[in-house]
């Protein structure tokens, strides 16, 4: 038995979020309780069908609501580039982009990401061409054992997409949620300085 989340119109249920801080939605508070039951879409606790767009490819998955996005990516889709390290949102090794924003995939349920566009480290290079951040990491040896690298790259590439000229202070801030045990930070700073300066 599996509930199906992907069959329903997402427009009805899944929108209306992401209210930015002061977008100034004028008017009324949401209408008072009409028939709450109809306003609750209940699924699980057994496997439910969800749909994720991962690196541009639609993926239908059947999994329990308790499965994290990280485990869904690694164990169900076998995209193992995203790493499990602290499993508590403290190290950034599992960083992916969800609808363009960096997220710790260990601290997000796969069902939360239903309908979302996910980009993982495997999807960053386009058409066989490395992302400029990946290329700079290679040239500056901004990695050692490489286990933190996918997360570092995803955080740095997100920064680069928003701010291609980011300076060292911004780079430090952008990876302040990514831990490296080998100690590659200095080379990451070098790589990102290079990227901001327009590459080699």
């Amino acid at each position: 038995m599996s509930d199906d989340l992907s069959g329903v119109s997402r427009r009805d249920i899944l929108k209306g979020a992401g209210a930015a801080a002061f977008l100034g939605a004028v008017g009324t508070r949401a209408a008072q309780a009409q028939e709450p039951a109809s306003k609750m879409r209940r699924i699980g606790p057994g496997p439910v069908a969800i749909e994720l767009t991962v690196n541009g490819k639609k993926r239908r998955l059947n999994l329990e609501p308790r499965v994290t996005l990280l485990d869904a990516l690694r164990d169900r889709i076998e995209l193992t580039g995203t790493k499990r390290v602290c499993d508590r949102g403290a190290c950034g090794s599992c960083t992916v982009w969800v609808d363009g924003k960096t997220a710790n995939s260990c601290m997000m349920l796969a069902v939360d990401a239903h309908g979302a566009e996910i980009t993982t480290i495997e999807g960053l290079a386009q058409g066989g061409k490395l992302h400029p951040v990946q290329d700079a990491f290679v040239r500056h040896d901004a990695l050692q054992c490489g286990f933190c690298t996918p997360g570092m790259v995803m955080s740095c590439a997100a920064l680069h997409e928003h701010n291609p000229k980011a300076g060292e202070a911004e780079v430090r801030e952008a990876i302040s949620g990514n831990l490296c045990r080998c100690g590659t930070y200095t080379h990451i700073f070098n790589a990102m300085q290079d990227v901001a300066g327009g590459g080699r």
Partner: protein
Amino acid sequence: MSKQKVRLGFKGNEKEVEVNPRKGTPAWMGVDADPAVIGKDHARIDAIAKVTGAAKYSYDMRPAGLCYAKLIGSPHAHAKVKRVDLTKARALKGVLFAEAQEGKTVRFAGDDVAGLVAETEEILDDAIRLVTVDYKVLPHAVSEAAAQADGAPRVKRNSENVVLPRRGGTWGSLDAAAAAHKGADVVLERVYRTQVQTHSCLETHGSVCEWNDGKLTVWASTQSTFGVRRTIAGALRIPQGDVVVITQHMGGGFGSKFGADRWDVFAARAAKVIGRPVRCMLDRKAEHLVAGNRPSSIQRCKFSAKKNGTLLGAEVRSWGTGGIGGGAGVLNPDIYNFKGAGRECFNVYTHAGGGRAFRAPRHPQGVFALEGMIDELAEAIKMDPLELRRKNDSDPVRLAEYEIGAKKIGWKTRKKSGSDRGVKKRGLGCAASLWYHTGGPGTVVRCRIEKDGSVLVANGAQDIGTGTRTVLAVIAAEELGLEVKDIEVRLGTTTDGFGPASGGSKTAASVGPAVRNAAYSVKREILATVARDVGGDVDKMDLKGGQVVGGKKALTFKQACSLFPDGFETDAKATAEDFDRRAQFAPRISGCQFAEVEVDTETGQVRVVKVVAVQDCGRVIDPLLARSQLNGGVIQGVSYALFEDRLLDPNTGDMVNPNLVDYKIVGSLDMPEIEAVMFPVANGINSIGMSGLGEPSTVATAGAIGNAVANAIGVRIRSLPITPDKVLAALKGMS
């Protein structure tokens, strides 16, 4: 054997020595060697795999039918496992294997009491909650003091809690040290403390085990593929020949991943029983609790000196705990020339996870105390601390390094301790380090060429992230006159030639000479064949820039290889003769580091502004990667100095911070500027002059930071990590 004269040392300090290259091996490189590929920056050859997520770590291996295993750890530091009820767990659908350790006495929190295997991680999680364990909780001792108290519970059945290990427990002579205090102008007695640090490898310990036709494949996260093969075969009582260990990439070891562990053996046994592959990777909590740590130390130091800066006596008595393991010694005071020096290092057993080798075992903790004492003596006799070091250090390499480091940090601007004005005070400090020439014989490397000019270099050892794979390619390219991209390297499978464990900074220095021998042998064969078939004097010919040079006719490397229709290969070994310890220029690897810190005297926060690390690197194979390693050593040293601390609750004996939130590892915003200076020394230890780099660069960092903090605020923190509460306590205690 043919004798060869080679010039060793460094610019400004050279000597000529005679070495004996073994027949069929290349000439040794001295100071004047000018290699074409070695010593240039080369990108890591597996970097693209690592930045695209394509690199497969053991944690990523997913053979068909993979199941998931976990060992359940005790919440008690000391208890007898009376009963383990697995009934409910076994009854859960998807649970495939379960076993308990009834009757076991657990001796630290996290010690395993049962193991489970399930089809999914979610089922495994549920099954674990269904296991009930009855413990008889016993009294525990988790601190050095508690273990030494009257009536303290015994940690080990066959041992006192405090022991002086027969090997490595003593050094020098404490009697001579005590006698040497005579005539001293200053005698200082101080106690220095260092904490327990966990390795916190990002990829946790563990493996994926799969059986096929009675043969076991282990994808292990290890720094010793052959060590895992030996130990897991031993534990399972099967021939080593029936085990293949594979480690293509691994996420950090730092000394904690040398052999098969309990969880690996469990995974292998379970996989055999259920007939499916099993993965057992530790979770983060277990990684902190059971997978090793750097032992603590309490170092009682009594040092003396004359006013003129002559060091006299150094007595060191230390007590440290590696939990149920040992290894709590310290390297103090070996670096300087004392008139008399000695130490005793006691292991204190406690109810805590066992210590393991950790990046320069014994050294950072010893150097923190030693260098603190040297600075305290300098302060007492009113001498510049660097001057005191120079006066009592006879190592020519380090003496040269001091000059470089002092200049780069601006040592001349160093103020009198505690004299900086303002709320945020700056200070400078320095510390010395030493390490050893650890490369050794036994490695077997295969070098194979194909008719089309392809080159493969293969060895069964692993690359733990230091760049071994790249180092092999660079050396082979050098010898064959090719570029790094022309070389394919296969590493990390025990069906290839034997290779060393990556420990003691010995991998590159062990594998490197073997690669060179193999490539040299292949080169000789190619040249001999060209000479025979095309013409030329083989002794005048060489491979350079992708060409056969010096022959009768210009040939490309590829054309030369086409003379071998089936290709050919050579397995070359590095033997004891390839490592000549008598020919060494300096018996040890020397380094020094300088730190600048800023201390906020209102919050107690220490910020490391800059670290200059000057390090004897032997002959550097790939400066880009070498710099990564030096930076890494410094960064781990900063983390050790300021943040990391495994905290055990004294009331329960359990760890309060077994995660990566509360166990604090230095991050990007705390990163100092790092200037890593490679000090090249032609050391004559092997044909290339290669040294290991992994460990030496982390030895001095905490010592330099400790001294810089004391210089900034005028009070000394003799305890690591140097956290705000300690800084404030010291400052308030002073005023």
